[in-house]
Every structure is written in C-alpha cells, then in structure tokens.
C-alpha cells in the first residue's frame, strides 16, 4: 500500500525436501537407534547421580583445568546434568529425524471483528453505561470515587505496625561524652600507644553486655581510628582539637549509602568505600575527593581519660550514615 510500484512477486513456499529417514527404512532404523542411545546415556547419568550420592564428601579428584574437585559434589552435578541433557537431546533428535518435518500453513484472521459486531458491542457498552446513569449522576460517580479512594487507605493503615516511627533514632548513636573506645573484636579499651603511626583500627563504643551487641547499633556506632603524625593533618583548629596525639576518629559508615568504609590507603591517607568508590581524605577531616558521596564522614571528638584510655569527648555532632529527609532538621 505504500507505493504503487510493482513489488517482486511472492514465489510461494519452497518445495519440501525429504529427509533420508522419510523414505529409507534403514536410515529410519538408524535414527531410532540413535535416539535410543541418547536416552540410554541419560540413564547412565542417573546411575552416576545415584552412585555419587553415597560417595563420602571428603574424596577429591583431579580434573584438568578445574583442579581438585570434590568427587561427591561433582558427581551429583554431572550425573544430574547428563541425565537431563540427554533426555532433551533424544527427544529433539527424535523430532528432527523421525517426526514429520513438512511445514504446514495455518490461517490467521484479523482480530478486528466485523463492523456489525463491533457496532453492537460498542452500543451494548454505551447502553450499559447509559442505564447505570454513570455519566449523568455525577454525585454517585464522585462519592463512589471518594469511597474507593478512601477504602484504599485501610490496608495502608493496617500496615502501620510494621515498624516504629523513626523519631530521633536515626540521629542518635551509642557514643556519649566519656564512652570508652573498645576494640572490635575483643572489646578491650584502647590506649593511644596501642596504635602505631600509620595504623588503622575498627572500634566500637563500650557497652555493658558486649556479647549481645545489636547489629542495628553497630550500623551506627562503627568507628575507624587512624593514627597519623600530627603535622600531617590539614585541619582547622576545632577539628584538630578533636584528635588525640595524631589519632583521628571517623564514622565507618559511608555517608553515601551506608557501606563500611573499609579500605585505607596508607600512602595517600585516603579512605575508600568499596561499594561505590567514594574517596575521603583523612588529613582534611574525611573531605570527599572522589565518587558519589556528598558529605565527609562524621568525625568523633576524642580524648583520653585519666588512665590514658581513649574516650569520646562528645557524641557525634551530626547523624552518621546515609542522608535522609530530616537529617539536619531539628
């Protein structure tokens, strides 16, 4: 319909070419045998699976390329693979060699119904709508809409007790003024001298029952201690006063999406988050120097108690972890 130029004619479906098995009984018999062999291989696979099930799981076999493999696991897997794969191969070989391969033509009809049917259908819909008075009785329409909309609120309401309201929970951590820093693992208090220059350590706040620390607390409390030479810092006076003998403490929870910022590069003094590669400069109060994070890691103000153990001088001055809507609102 697009152009009046005469198109090249459709030569029609090419003539069917018969297969050998279609007219040669010997070839057909051979194909039958091949199918049976394929099914037979599948049965052998099942036998391998059964045998492997009883192999003890501490026997290893050497397989080229793959190295030492657990015989039990490998046997189970290969047995299952063989038993299934060759059923499929047999069935398809059967279909391809012995079942009819003459293409057949089925007719297709346009989905659009004859115009008379369509008219009646459309009229029926219109009549139905007319009879219900949906178009005219706008009061019913609107009140029904409002009722349906409101009824959708009930499941929302019923889901209310899925969890508590966040309240101030996101903004608070276990760190209080005077909380001791303890090692993780170990829960031992730390002295400044425990940390060599250039070293990094993960610490947690000291709590009464360290055996039952909640993961949701660790998700906010985890802290990184890094010790540099004090002259290596490039901090303002306030932030410098938050460090102790070159030890600086940052929240370990990434300010981007909350992963643990666990990669520390000693040479450059950069912290890198393995999730999205946000990079923080330790010497400049964890300023973001690369990647998607928009904020520095919160710094914890630390000092020592009279016995020389590291403690928090104040709690965190800002919420730790990823951003949320009310992060800086009071």
């Amino acid at each position: 319909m697009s152009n009046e130029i005469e198109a090249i004619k459709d030569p029609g479906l090419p003539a069917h070419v018969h297969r050998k098995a279609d007219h040669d009984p010997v070839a057909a018999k051979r194909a039958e045998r091949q199918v049976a062999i394929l099914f037979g291989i599948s049965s052998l696979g099942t036998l391998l699976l059964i045998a492997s099930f009883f192999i003890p799981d501490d026997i290893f076999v050497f397989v080229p390329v793959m190295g030492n493999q657990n015989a039990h696991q490998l046997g189970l897997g290969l047995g299952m693979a063989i038993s299934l794969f060759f059923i499929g191969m047999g069935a398809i070989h059967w279909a391809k060699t012995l079942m009819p391969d003459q293409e057949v033509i089925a007719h297709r009809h346009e989905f659009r119904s004859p115009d008379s049917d369509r008219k009646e259908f459309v009229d029926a819909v219109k009549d139905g709508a007319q009879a219900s008075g949906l178009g005219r009785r706008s009061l019913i329409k609107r009140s029904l809409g409002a009722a349906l909309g409101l009824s959708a609120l009930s499941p929302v309401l019923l889901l209310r007790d899925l969890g508590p309201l966040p309240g101030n929970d996101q903004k608070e951590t276990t760190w209080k003024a005077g909380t001791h820093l303890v090692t993780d693992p170990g829960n031992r208090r730390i002295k400044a001298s425990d940390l060599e220059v250039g070293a990094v350590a993960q610490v947690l706040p000291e709590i009464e029952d360290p055996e039952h620390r909640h993961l949701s607390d660790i998700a906010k409390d985890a802290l990184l201690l890094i010790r540099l030479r004090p002259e290596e810092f490039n901090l303002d006076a306030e932030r410098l006063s938050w460090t102790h003998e070159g030890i600086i403490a940052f929240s370990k929870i990434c300010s981007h999406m909350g992963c643990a910022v666990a990669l520390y590069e000693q040479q450059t003094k950069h912290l890198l988050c393995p999730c999205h590669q946000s990079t923080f400069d330790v010497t400049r109060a964890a300023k973001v120097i690369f990647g998607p994070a928009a904020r520095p890691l919160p710094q914890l103000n630390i000092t020592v108690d009279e016995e020389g153990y590291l403690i928090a001088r104040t709690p965190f001055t800002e919420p730790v972890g990823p951003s949320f809507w009310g992060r800086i609102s009071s």
Partner: protein
Amino acid sequence: MTTEHRLGQVANYVDERTGAAAWMKKNLQKVFPDHWSFLLGEVALYSFVILLLSGTYLTFWFDPSMKEVIYEGSYEPLEGVKMSAAYASALHISFEVRGGLLMRQIHHWAALIFMAAIVAHLMRVFFTGAFRKPREGNWIIGVGLLTLGIVEGFLGYSLPDDLLSGTGIRIAEAIIQAIPVVGSYLSYFAFGGAFPGEAFIPRIYTVHVLLLPGAFLALITVHLMMVWYQKHTQFPGPGRTEKNVVGYPLMPVYMAKAGGFFFIVFGVIAFISAVASINPIWLYGPYTPGQISAGSQPDWYMGWLDGLVRMSPPIETYFFGYTVSWNILIPGLIVPGILFTGMALYPFIESWITGDKREHHLLDRPRNAPNRTALGAMSITFMIVALINGGNDLIATHFDLSINQIMWGTRFGIFILPPIAFVVTKRLCLSLQRADRELVLHGRETGRLLRLPHGEFVEVHEPISPEKAYLLTSHEQAPALELPEVDGRGVKRAGAIRNKIRSRMSVAHSEAIPKVSADDLKEIESH
C-alpha cells in the same frame, strides 16, 4: 494393544467428560513457526520452572530468621561464629544436605540465566518489531516480568544473609531512606525499626517465595495465553504473509522439541552448576554492618544500576532544612523509572510516530527499521556503559587501570557513546539495505573472474533465487507522515509544535534505501 490405541482411549475418556474434542483437536494441531530466536523466551520460561523446583527444595531446609545463633556445623573456619539462623541454615544446605550445594548453585545460576534469557528475548521482540499491534499488551506484561525479575533476583540474593547480601540490603535501605519526606518512615516500616533489625529477612522471604512467584505465574500464564491466542509472529519469506502462519504442528513436533528443550536447558544449568562455583557464601562470612569485602558486586542484572549510582556526581541539596540526595535519587530511582516507563510505552510511541494502526504479524528484519534498531543499540550502549562502571573496581584490578579514570570515562561515556551508537547503527542499517538492493539488482558475487576478449577482467555475478529476492524486497517502506501545520483555510492548527515534532520523527523513522521493485529488475534485464 498399541500405544496409539491406548492414547486414543485417553482422548476419548477426556472428551466424554469435558466435551473438549473440538477445542483440543484445533489446538493440538496449532502451528508454530520455527526460528532459533523464538527459543529465547522458552529459555526464560524453563529457567522459571527450574527456579520453582530448586527453590522449593531449598525451602525445606532454609530458616528465614535473623535470630542470632552460634555456628556448630561442619565448616570449620566458621566454627563458633555468631550469625543469623538464615545464614547458618544456608551453610547447612551447602555442607550437610547431600545435593544441597548443587541445588543452591542451580537456583542461583538459573536466576542469572532467567534474567539473561528475558533480556535476550526482549531484544529479539524489540529489534524485530514483534511488539507492534496487536501485541502491545504482551510487551507491557513482558516489561513487568523483567522488572519483577530484577526485584525477585535481588531478594533472593539478600536471603542467605552473608556479608555480600547484607551489603546489598544496606544499599537498598539507603535508597528507600533517600525518598523525600517519607523515606525514613518507609525504611523503619520495612525493617521493623532501625537497619538491619530482625524482621527484614522473614518478610522478604514471604515476598520471595509466595507473593512474587504468584505474580510471576499469573503474568506468565497471561503472556503465554496471549501468544497462543494471537498466534506467534513469523519472519518474512516466501509463502509467509500477514494472513498465515507457517511452521510445525504442536503435536507431535513441538511437544517433542519444546519438551526436549526444557531438559536441555535444565541439563545445561545443572552442568554449569556442577563445574562453576557461584556465590560461595561460606567465604564471605555472616553479615555485620561494620565489615565489608572488597570488590562487592551485585548480580549482573543489578550491575547497571550500581554503575549508575557509582558514577553519579556528589549532589545533595538542602532546602528549609530538609535533605534531598540527588546522588541517590537520580541514579537509583529517577533514571530507572524513566527508562522502564519509556520501554513499556515504546509500542505506543512508535505507532504515534508512524501513524501505523494496522496489525502486524510478519517481523521486521532489524535493518529495515533503522531508526528503531538504532534506538535499541543506543539503549544497549547506555546499559553497557553503566554496567562497566558497575564493575569498575574489578576492571581496575584485573586490567591494572585507575578506578578514577574508569569512572570519569563512564561519566562522559554515558552521555557521548549512546548517541554515537545511534548514528553508527542507523548508518549500518542503511548500508545493509543498500547491500540488499545491490544483491537483488546485480546478483551474488561468485568470485569467478572472467577475461573478456579485449583483456578486461570482470567478476561473474550470479542472480539470486526468486525466494531470496522476494525476502529482500517484501518489506514495506512507508513514507513519512505528512502533517500540515496549517489547515485548509490557512489557520495554524492546534498543537502545531506537537505535529512538528511528530513529523520530524516520522521523517527520521522512514529514512530508507528504496527497495528493488519488479520494474527495476525488468529494466536491468533489458540491458
């Protein structure tokens, strides 16, 4: 008594109780066209069945609980370590249940292959124009299945509660939390309090094994019934028209082929699972928010999303004291939302551009729809650039590159490369059309050189078969829409700008190398 006779009796039995003879007769002889690319959707379907089977097996031992337990199983390195019951039971399936590790591997591999098959099937449908009327609805269901597949896969990846999967949940939580106004509330409701809490895994377990598989079953059933009812599309060729379907009948050929193919897919997945270790959770250890493993990677179908998040610039805005994290919202919600909505609406967009409201059952060869093919190539390029950035840490360590360079490369690449892919693909399609034209007009190059009496060398061309000539010229070349900006009285029409855009796009869409007509051939023969 022969097998045929017995089966005949079964048919008789069924009909006497249901009266289904007429319906069954028609449908057992239903014709399906044959092409390798029609198997991609089948791979997805069979992977889904395998997922149901292997997943059910895993539920017999998996304990979806975040209660803290102390590991006492046979894997010595984790002896005495505190972990969730979910992780401990996943270890139990891997080490103590015979065949459990194999089933875990089959489940995970089948999920990856399920998603790969869906994407490949989607590309086949897109590039051949199979989504056109009357199949727009099925296209939308397909986009829905892809979306659900991504969610379902992510939830499954999260269930074992190892260090890697917990990190994935942490990132999902950050995305939820970044939603303006309600983010914190949604997060606290989803997790039953502060992240990670003890509620999340039991909750997503119900979604993973009940809610979403149910949705899948319903949508896949409708998807297949539509294919059945509307009859499958077919590639163009001699004897194939908009009014027929050429292929093999369901019984027996397709029953054997499709049934056999299920076993082949299952067998291949079992083989991969036997020889290629995937997600060795015992190496990662239990999840704790303070730890992480380097090179943390999501499954491949989430990689593009992670890549977008990684390349996002560090933008966060504050107004009236409220924080909006554009660095999370744009790559995590807005861009994927636009992409998937655009994908779902594409059939309607294309039909708006072309003004074509007819039914189509013959597929397009991708080269004959250059604009669509180029758009597809552009989208794939976008996804690949994002996916590369999703693996930037692994690429950096494997190829000894700087992660910063890869990141900057993809930050620019995501804007520059897709348009280049569009232009290059469109030109390639037009060149291929030109090559088709050449082939029909002048025949195939035989490689035989002939020396003419006066010394000139020529290559002998051989005319192509009438079947091939028909195949290369049977497509339609619709002209661009003509949408006058003014009506008959010279008054500017309403929506003139819309019309202008539409006709511009229509012109771009209809760009083609004129196909050979019968007249052209006659003319060339008379030389």
